[in-house]
């Protein structure tokens, strides 16, 4: 069975947020929702301080905490391991947001625009974006990254993978030992974030070396 997974190379990532922007464009996420967000981190003190950007997205865990705690069954997992939310079943309790160890569930109460106008009217682009968002998601309910399943079904790559200028993101079948992602994980010592939570995430990181 094909199991979709990601590899993110932390040596190549230089924190340009292209993935965040591309995901936002592809999924029409409103303000407050960033399926592919990058978190900035620093250690040490000058002159020996270091910075490392951590690009994150839904880990599509094999044993997801979010699916286990969802009381309505809105959170489901398909045969490829991708976790999705059915907007008609979700009641917006927020339990998944507490349970997700990776902070990849989002819930907003209303649609907020990045470009407020004096009259409060939305231009054509924003109306389009709002409508596309409301097709698959809503307000007061949970939303999350779904590995761009729509695009993958058409044979394309997820938006963040295509957009990354450093070629730091890879997508493929982690059940296939000969796929690009599997080879990268094995060869370059790919690791999972916080494996102690026992969810077995499908996103692997290559150490910055």
């Amino acid at each position, binding site marked *: 069975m094909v199991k979709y997974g990601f590899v993110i190379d*932390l040596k190549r990532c230089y924190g340009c947020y292209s993935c965040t922007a591309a995901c936002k464009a592809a999924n029409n996420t409103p303000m407050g929702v960033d399926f592919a*967000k990058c*978190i900035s*981190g*620093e*250690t040490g003190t000058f002159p020996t301080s*270091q910075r*490392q950007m*951590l690009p*994150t997205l839904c880990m599509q865990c094999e044993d997801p*905490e979010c*699916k*286990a*705690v*969802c*009381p*309505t*069954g*809105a959170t489901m997992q398909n045969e490829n391991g991708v976790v999705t939310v059915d907007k008609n*079943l*979700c*009641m*917006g*309790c*927020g*339990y998944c*947001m*507490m*349970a*997700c*160890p*990776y*902070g*990849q*569930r*989002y*819930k907003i*109460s209303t649609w907020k625009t990045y470009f407020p106008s004096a009259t409060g009217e939305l231009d054509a682009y924003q109306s389009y974006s709002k409508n596309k968002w409301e097709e698959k998601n*809503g*307000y*007061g*309910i*949970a939303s999350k990254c779904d590995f761009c399943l729509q695009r993958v079904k058409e044979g394309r790559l997820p938006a963040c993978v295509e957009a990354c200028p450093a070629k730091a993101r890879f997508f493929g079948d982690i059940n296939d030992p000969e796929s690009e992602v599997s080879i990268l994980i094995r060869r370059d010592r790919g*690791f999972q*974030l*916080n494996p102690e*939570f026992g969810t077995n995430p499908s996103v692997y*990181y290559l*150490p*910055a070396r």
Partner: protein
Amino acid sequence: MKAQTKWGWLIAIYLFLAGLGGGAYIAGVLADFAGLTTGISQIGVFLGLPCVFLGCMFLIADLGKPINFWRAYMKPRTSWIARGTIIITVFMIIDFIHIILWIWPFDLLASAVGTRYFINILGLIFAFGTVIYTGLLLGASRPIAFWSTAMLPLLFLVSALSTGFMVVILSSSVIGVPKEGLGLLERIDIILIILEIFVIAFYLQATHRVSESRASAQLVLSGSVAPLFWFGVAVLGLLFPLLFDLIGLYGLSGSSAHIFILLASVSGIIGGLILRQVVLKGGIHAPLKSGRFEYGLTNV
């Protein structure tokens, strides 16, 4: 590191009312088994349903899409919210039957003691379920070390019993039930408050000792949540009730003793609500660790 902001006062009020209602019902049933004045046990049993029901209203109000609330029953196999929804629904049904057949409009259970005791035990099981499951629900959030500790259900249980006893004492005094039976409840309540002091102390000590939850414990003891904790929980919820109860039971007598007992109950009940809010506001997710870097979560 910042604590979660999604579950706030509305959820705290629900947790508190579920504990209060369940605890009051337990107090009422125990008073019935102990043979105390019927009025006292009837008050306890009567308070269970409206408190838990009102709590559910707050819960539904907090939902992002309240119209789907009825779907909360769907996944009891893995979800504590689903299990809890079933538990409190069954509790409310049992309490409803208990009230109708014993308090108003019927009086059948007054003489049918065997049946009444059977309903008592059934209701007791689900009342305990109601007050304990909320601790287990929070505990299922594995990345929040402040919540996923074995002590939390115990803490919620002791707090629910303590506030439950207090609300029965308070209501009985207000309604004017004869005082003999109340003395026993008040004494048990003092023991419950002392127990609660120990449990809260152990809870904070344990969460402080474990590195994953230390930030949360520090937030509660000396950080932004500290005023709420020290004044709302330590003083209002524990110190005042204990002091006023002791003064009322052993120091004074007559109507001034009565007033101290009432003050102790009111103070303790408020403290029970603030305790839930303190636990919620102390919930910090474990940071993501990659190499030598730690990243705090930003979505909650």
